[in-house]
């Protein structure tokens, strides 16, 4: 906790990134962010959810994910808005807030060259959203295209919990 607090102070010392890191404000997801994200969560079961503010199915799924996060404190929940939108951060943030995901680790595509960002994550991904990647403790990635069934997420979460015992 002490180290964490120190890290917070360091982050706040560099103003622009500090503001971007404000609770609930999405961080810009740029070239190289994916590898950093994988590294930061290595060894922790992590759910990465790709979505966008104009995507109809996403609007339905996001609040379900908010409840999932509340019910599963042992899972790192990460959201990445893959829409490229002018003035998107405000809209993204308000949608995350109302879905109960303000305290998740939230990112937003911050590079206009979205093809390159997607390629770094999964060369086969053409940009369809929602999309969920379940990253197990051992790094195994399971990709769910389209809306995820919460029952499937619960099942995966249970296997992750069982893995530590």
């Amino acid at each position, binding site marked *: 906790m002490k180290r964490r607090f120190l890290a917070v102070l360091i982050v706040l010392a560099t103003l622009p990134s500090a503001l971007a890191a404000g609770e609930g404000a999405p961080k810009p997801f740029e070239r190289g962010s994916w590898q950093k994200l994988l590294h*930061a969560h290595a060894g922790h079961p992590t759910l990465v959810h790709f979505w966008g503010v104009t995507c109809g199915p996403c609007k339905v799924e996001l609040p379900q994910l908010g409840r999932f996060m509340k019910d599963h404190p042992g899972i790192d929940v990460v959201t990445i808005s893959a829409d490229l939108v002018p003035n998107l951060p405000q*809209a993204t943030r308000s949608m995350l807030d109302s879905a109960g995901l303000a305290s998740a680790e939230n990112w937003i595509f911050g590079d206009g060259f979205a093809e390159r960002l997607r390629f770094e994550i999964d060369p086969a991904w053409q940009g369809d959203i929602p999309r969920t990647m379940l990253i197990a403790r051992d790094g195994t990635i399971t990709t769910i*295209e389209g809306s995820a069934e919460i029952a499937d997420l619960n099942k995966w979460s249970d296997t992750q919990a069982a893995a530590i015992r």
Partner: protein
Amino acid sequence: MISRKSVARTVLAAAMLGALPHLADAQMSHQHASEAACEETVLRCASKVTPAFAPDGTLWLAWRAGGQISVASSKDQGKSFSAPVQVTRDRLNLDWGPDARPKLAIDAKGDIALAFSIFRDQAFNGQVLTTRSTDGGHSFDPPKPITANNESQRFEAIGFDPAGAVFAVWLDKRNRVPAQQRGEKYDGAGLFFASSKDGGATYSDARMAADNTCECCRLALAFDGAGHPVVAFRNIFDGGVRDHAIVTFTDLARSGELHRVSRDDWQIAACPHHGPSLTISPAGTYHVTWYTNGKARKGLFYARSRDGGKTFSDPLPIGELNRSPSRPQVIAGPQGLVMAWKEFDGQKTSINLMTSHDDGATWSKPTVVADTTDSSDHPLLVTDHRQTYLSWMTKADGYHFQAIEGEP
């Protein structure tokens, strides 16, 4: 390791944000790394550019740049352009979806019909707006909604039929609320259409061609030899399968039977943001290209129909699967068919192209005709009936308009 919750961070960050509101705003706006090279309304700053030839051979472009829609024309096949004319004046929230773009069509008199979508509220409900120019593109009427209905509309397509009427088709969510009031689940959006006998000044009442189609992919519109509109679109078939369908209209007011283009079996509750392309060759053959990630096949595909869209050939895979092929376009030009699509190798996006001189039975080997190392619009193909051209907007290298080699 990322901390999930930290009270200290929350309080401090909130304090900083409160103390420095303008700095926070500046940071917010910088978080959006634009698809466009610059923020003005000029062509160089465009993120989407749509070409269309007028019957007299004039090339027209409509583009989205600096938050506005503008047009310009060229009498020399894209070498030089007229001074741009801004179509929109108000600060509109233009639809910036990957498959959204302004559409335009020009009739024999040189009148221009133009349509585009905006987000009209904070919930990202869309609205299709139309306008026209009757003075050769020097000025445009104030844009107005294509339909009086106020539910979400997006992904319009427009074209002049041979008799000079404008046909418009779009995706429309007006059936969602009534379905929900009946306690029914409503998927997707309706495929709605209307027409205009006065060059796009007024449109007929909207009618529905199909309900529960995929709500987030562009539509492909072409006219058959008899002048009937034909629309290819991503449908939602039973079980939530988002495969492609096609409808040939009986006339401007009557839809036709829906046929399936391919059984890809892509069952997904998601927005693929990736619509099809359609062209109809002089022989009357329908040619369709599309993207799928279905159980039966994955990637880009081409198929043709020689019976007016009732049945289609086996899908032909397009492009290198490990290079993320996307945005396939097909057009019937004077020298045959041309197909173009994007591929990405991890560093650069290339435009690949192939041709067919036997109405789609066989295709040439793909060749790379252009590339770029930053974001780019879809590659579009356009013909003036003497030559086929590639139209491609790129952030790093500007706007390309190039004749397809092998043509006169």
